[in-house]
């Protein structure tokens, strides 16, 4: 499969009163055509900032993209003019946000908001756009789509609003859909509806997806490959089946262990918890940022931050210790 998006060494900082927060510290990944990449991590690990940086949606200041590149169609998204990137956002790469309540404009009708990308990017007139909007709303399963064009966001339920958001993101048939925790605010039965919908649309439209979440369950059923982030670094990446079957990084092991499973036979006596808290980095660490919470920690971890190292076929982990043997890699 052809490479669609190539992100290399992305670094994003935020200037705050306490100092410069290093939110993303050299993130690299590839996205192939039709691939679904899951990006997993806890709040503050830099997963949202990574994709927002790629689309240049980081407010600057206080944010600043200080390094790296994001190559899409032979062009660097990070170096484009504002005008150029506007033609890409929403048309070729579009985004679905977490909170369906706050990401719509409450005083504009749904019809108006969903048709906006069509008018802006595809140069359609109002009538053409309207027909296309009805089509996309039907595609995501909104009943009586044509009658609902004149409704306002508050007249839709949370699940319906997230469907409308997906319709809006897909209406220009983008090549890449970035979904930032799109089901976190929804109930499980509605979450299941939305995930089914996204899977169906992915197969029908053949787009690539970057799905950001903290829910390891959702990713398991949806993604081909995944990247685990911690403190602004990708600390492990592999095909999903490999990561779940044999996680290599202590943080990934901890995350999977802290989840009770609905299908496990017996009640586990205790959940494996990761003691301590994720750090906020005011400078680039010369140690492993997970070391203070890590029970595999060795001397080396305190002096050098481990890069991603191959630990299996297309399976990389950033850890000095082989967690299978407990020895230095």
């Amino acid at each position: 499969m052809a490479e669609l998006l190539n992100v290399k060494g992305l670094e994003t900082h935020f200037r705050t009163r306490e100092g410069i927060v290093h939110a993303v510290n050299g993130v690299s990944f590839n996205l192939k055509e039709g691939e679904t990449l899951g990006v997993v991590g806890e709040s503050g690990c830099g997963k949202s900032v990574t994709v927002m940086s790629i689309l240049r949606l980081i407010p600057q200041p206080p944010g600043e993209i200080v390094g790296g590149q994001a190559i899409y169609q032979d062009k660097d998204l990070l170096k484009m003019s504002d005008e150029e990137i506007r033609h890409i956002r929403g048309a070729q790469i579009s985004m679905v946000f977490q909170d369906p309540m706050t990401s719509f404009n409450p005083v504009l009708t749904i019809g108006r908001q969903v048709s906006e990308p069509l008018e802006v990017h595809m140069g359609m007139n109002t009538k053409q756009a309207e027909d296309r909007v009805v089509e996309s709303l039907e595609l995501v399963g909104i009943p009586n789509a044509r009658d609902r064009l004149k409704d306002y966001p508050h007249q839709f339920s949370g699940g319906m609003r997230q469907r409308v958001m997906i319709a809006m993101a897909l209406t220009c048939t983008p090549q890449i859909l970035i979904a930032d925790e799109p089901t976190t605010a929804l109930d499980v039965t509605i979450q299941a509806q939305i995930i089914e919908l996204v899977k169906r649309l992915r197969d029908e439209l053949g787009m690539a997806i970057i799905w950001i979440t903290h829910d390891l369950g959702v990713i398991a059923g949806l993604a081909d490959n995944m990247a685990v982030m911690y403190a602004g670094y990708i600390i492990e990446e592999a095909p999903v089946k490999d990561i779940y079957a044999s996680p290599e990084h202590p943080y990934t092991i901890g995350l999977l262990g802290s989840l009770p499973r609905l299908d496990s036979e017996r009640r586990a006596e205790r959940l494996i918890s990761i003691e301590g808290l994720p750090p906020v980095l005011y400078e680039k660490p010369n140690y492993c940022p997970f070391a203070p919470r890590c029970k595999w920690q060795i001397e080396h971890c305190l002096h050098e931050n481990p890069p991603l190292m191959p630990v299996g076929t297309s399976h990389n982990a950033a850890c000095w210790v082989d967690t299978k043997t407990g020895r230095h890699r």
Partner: protein
Amino acid sequence: MDENNVLLKVDNLVMHFPIKRGVFQRTVGFVHAVDGVSFEIHQGETLGLVGESGCGKSTTGRTILQLYKPTDGHVYFGETDLTKIKGEELRLLRRKMQMIFQDPYASLNPRMTVEEIVGEPLIVHNLAKGREVRDRVKDLLGLVGLNPAYVDRYPHEFSGGQRQRIGVARALSLNPDLIICDEPISALDVSIQAQVVNLLEDLQEQFNLTYLFIAHDLSMVRHISDRVAVMYLGVIMELAQRAEVYNHPLHPYTQALLSAVPIPDPVVEEKRQRIILTGDVPSPVNPPSGCRFRTRCPIAAEICAEKRPEFKEWVPGHFAACHFSAKFV
């Protein structure tokens, strides 16, 4: 856990909130938040109460503590009917029943120090004063895994997980028998959730606490509970031992809910068949006639609209409110 020693008995609890409109605040309708809920909790047991947002699970918890005056029904704590007592009598019993809230950011007064927050119940109930309060607070902080030296800090100096520990310390300060945990972990990150759940389990063992654990995360409820009640639109749909609910659900809603929960294992996810419910939860202002679930139920028949199903014991200890549960026994 003592099967015969019932600590809390909820009998046909009803909580309707009036909807008021106009200049004269005329009552124009009711939100049927809780509509005839009955269950018992034994001494030392954890009863999990699960359901989607708006199903009335939090209202049930609050109504039990008489934070709302119930519209109908009885709540027996030991021998006493809480709905019949008030004033000083109720205040004295409240020592025995405490609550842990969902949002660790909103449930602690930002202008109070940890000593004031955790010590307040002691002072209000005249159980300690001066130096004793401080010593007791330090003991409590140690119990919940916080450094006792933090007594003079303010809530903003703590992370979400630490704040939730402060909430737990406050609930413990009066040596309660029953703690109602209202979504205590849903605002926390995955690795921190496991810390708090482990803490709650340790404390339960140490002090023989009884928990009503309210949550929407079915995997976590399964981990922590002895018995589980599933709620939908103000009504308990199913109630049984944990293993029974998860392995042999007798209600179509429970079945759909369980099948919607993603499992963190790509191999399992690949093979799973999902029951995808259509539509959204109806409004509790105007709930469906007969069975509350019939509008989304895959096996609904005519009788479901006419007659509210009885909450019946199909197998010893396993209750379900469905006309067709016999099919699944």
